């Protein structure tokens, strides 16, 4: 189920909120509410993946049982941890990567092994990582074991973050699972985040996705049109994904949970290193804590450090999709981070801030050509069009037409990437009129987003495919 669908907004959510708050919390224990959230989350998941809901339950069951065993049999904890991680990864590897490996094996050997063509369970990349983080944290004694299967499953399947993140670690919500508070202030905070996320997704990301789609379907792709596409895609992917994260965090607040932030104005970064501290933070910190640091991080020999970095970034790329494009995308960032660390750091510190931003944005545009390219050949063609007129020239009438047509959404997008709206809101918050202005603005944004949903059909979330 999509957050930005009528089914979710005007059927699932009101029913879920009513039932959730009707349920008692005896002695402040949210046990009944956790159980209800688990059931609601399973319905939410089954709405899009009726068959795979049992796979998720099975993965929860095995990880929970093995977690109990790790806690009980500490002398065999390492083996048990490895079994649990293997089981979680095997689901991911089978459903997401099996065909990729078969294809490449066939290509290498000239063999004809038939592809499995199994559908990818939605959100498997996210909930598998959540399960692994629980297992590893438990193994390293960083968290206490969860003895209640329903509470553990509620953590894994919690519908706000189930299918597109953020990747929530058990340590971050363990306290909320056992005892959490609800307040009007927290609910209001959740409402604000949810509606702003919805508006980002519906009013900006989806509108810009139309422009991206138009470019891809266009026969003529001039240099100007290619840059318009890249700007639109850069904004689209940011508002699509951060909008989803905002909605997830907002829903979490409404239900009494506090999820960590996933984005922090990534396009304001002044280096690629800085960008990855601001973009999809739950994923980059996951790889840092569960892969990079266990490998030794940067406290190793130079050669090993380079190996660690490239491995982590190729895995980060590969996490996004079973394709060479994604692997290349990850390695691209690995190389850039290496260059920044060894060669560019001192130069960049002296460079004007404006130039540093241009450098980051240019490299990010290049990265999106790899990310959004259906194939390496398509990526090569797009990069060619970025820097040369090619057969379609510098400009074409369609480029000017669509630039004019999408200028306002693009400008809103540019401004939305900066801290300007936040600064403006902070100033307004000091005024009395904000007491009524904020609820009114949220109401209008909700209605406007609803209008776009009712009249539109273009609604996919990019990160659902991961």
């Amino acid at each position: 189920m999509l957050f930005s669908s009528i089914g979710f907004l005007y059927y699932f959510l009101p029913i879920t909120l009513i039932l959730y708050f009707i349920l008692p919390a005896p002695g402040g224990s949210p046990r009944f509410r956790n159980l209800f959230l688990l059931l609601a989350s399973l319905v939410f998941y089954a709405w899009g993946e009726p068959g795979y809901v049992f796979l998720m339950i099975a993965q929860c069951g095995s990880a929970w049982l093995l977690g109990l065993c790790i806690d009980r049999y500490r002398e065999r904890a390492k083996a048990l941890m490895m079994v649990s991680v293997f089981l979680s990864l095997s689901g991911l590897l089978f459903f997401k990567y099996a065909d990729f490996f078969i294809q490449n094996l066939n290509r290498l050997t000239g063999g004809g092994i038939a592809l499995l063509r199994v559908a990818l369970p939605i959100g498997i990349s996210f909930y598998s990582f959540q399960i692994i983080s629980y297992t590893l944290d438990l193994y390293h004694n960083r968290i206490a074991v969860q003895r209640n299967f329903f509470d553990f499953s509620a953590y894994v399947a919690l519908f706000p973050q189930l299918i597109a993140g953020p990747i929530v670690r058990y340590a971050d919500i363990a306290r909320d699972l056992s005892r959490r508070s609800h307040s009007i202030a927290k609910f209001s905070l959740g409402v604000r985040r949810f509606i702003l996320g919805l508006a980002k997704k519906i009013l900006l990301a989806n509108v810009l996705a139309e422009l991206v789609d138009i470019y891809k379907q266009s026969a003529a792709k001039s240099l100007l049109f290619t840059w318009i596409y890249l700007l639109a895609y850069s904004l689209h992917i940011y508002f699509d994904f951060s909008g989803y994260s905002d909605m997830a965090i907002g829903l979490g607040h409404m239900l009494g949970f506090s999820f960590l932030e996933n984005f922090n104005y990534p396009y304001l970064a002044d280096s690629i290193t800085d960008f990855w501290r601001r973009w999809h933070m739950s994923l980059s910190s996951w790889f840092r804590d569960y892969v990079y640091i266990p490998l030794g991080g940067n406290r190793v020999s130079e050669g090993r450090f380079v190996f660690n970095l490239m491995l982590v970034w190729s895995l980060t790329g590969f996490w996004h999709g079973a394709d060479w494009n994604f692997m290349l995308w990850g390695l691209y960032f690995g190389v850039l981070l290496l260059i920044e660390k060894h060669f560019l750091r001192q130069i960049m510190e002296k460079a004007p801030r404006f130039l540093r931003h241009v450098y980051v944005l240019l490299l990010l545009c290049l990265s999106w050509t790899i990310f959004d390219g259906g194939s390496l050949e398509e990526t090569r063609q797009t990069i060619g069009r970025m820097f040369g007129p090619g057969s379609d020239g510098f400009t074409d009438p369609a480029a000017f037409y669509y630039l004019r047509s999408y200028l306002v959404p693009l400008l809103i997008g540019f401004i939305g990437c900066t801290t300007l709206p936040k600064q403006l809101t902070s100033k307004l918050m000091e005024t009395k009129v904000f007491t009524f202005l904020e609820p009114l603005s949220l109401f209008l944004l909700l209605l406007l987003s609803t209008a776009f949903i009712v009249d539109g059909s273009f609604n996919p979330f990019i990160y659902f495919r991961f």
Partner: protein
Amino acid sequence: MDPTQTEKPLLRDYLNSLVFIATIGLLFALNLIVKPPAILVSERRPPAVLPPITVRSIRSGSFMKGFEAYAADHFVFREAFRSVRAATVFGPFLQSDKNGLYFGDAGIGEFKPVDPLAARQTAEKIKKVADTAPDCRVFYSLVPDKSIYAGKYLPGLDLEAVEALLADVLADFTYISLSDCLDAGSYYPSDLHWDQARIAGVVDRLGEAMGVTHDLRAFRPMLAGAFHGVYAGQIALPVAWDQMIYEELPGLQARRLNDSTLLYEACPVYDLERFAGPDPYDLFLQGPQAIVELLNPSVSGGELYLFRDSYGSSLAPLLAGAYSKVTLIDLRYIDLRVLDQFLTIRPGSDLLFLYSSQILNNPSVLRV
């Protein structure tokens, strides 16, 4: 510690929460209570039906998919919400079009680029049909897309490229260009079709190319009434009413192939009952029909076979003034393989293939 746990709620926190709960709660309740319309008038279609809840439909996911379509179609104040979106797109967002629909010099239009591959496949299908009548004179033409006349800033259809593409496949036949016979005023502002009262230039051009003299003086213009075309509903904003005028030729008769009885039956050339229906353009020769024959007893000899889409319905009566019989064949509704069971193309007749860009882009709809 979570700051929201200790903060005293402000008035705006109460209002934010109230606004959200009230909006989703009220719309949820109204969606359950309010009876949906039997037909979505502006979109000219019935709303999606709630799929049956069965184990099979849930396991396959078809219930969930069907429910989303049902929920969107049955949403309360659907028309008002659609208008809000359209007003935002053309208003604050200053966008030139909404999903390809725009307000241009020719009224509301739609930009649909022609897919070269699809156009070539359509041309190959036309050739296959034309090759079944080797003893006839074969002509083909394109209904110029309204977007060609839309205005200076819109990337209109690249007619020259499409013509070149068709000429490559249909080199054995005669192409008749119509683009300079029309202008922005030749189309209904709220519809995709051309206005029968404003296509005399097309009739003349076809006659000139096919060696036939058309005299339109015998036709009498009649007012059918005011209507909103298909784009008016799609664009979801208030638009002016269009006037539909039809050109009546005394003595002209029509008959159509009844797709139930598979027998020919008499029908009106202009059906005012259809004008009052969901698609007023069906006034012309009863709208979608596999085969329609126009018989003009005042002319002896000369037959025309018009392979057409909906544009042909309004053009054919004007051509019928110069032929004893005009047969309209819509290959979207009859398969070429069974065509000879219902009509025989007389040697020496004229064949005219006249299609719009919609057919060029969708060769699969032609049952050839």
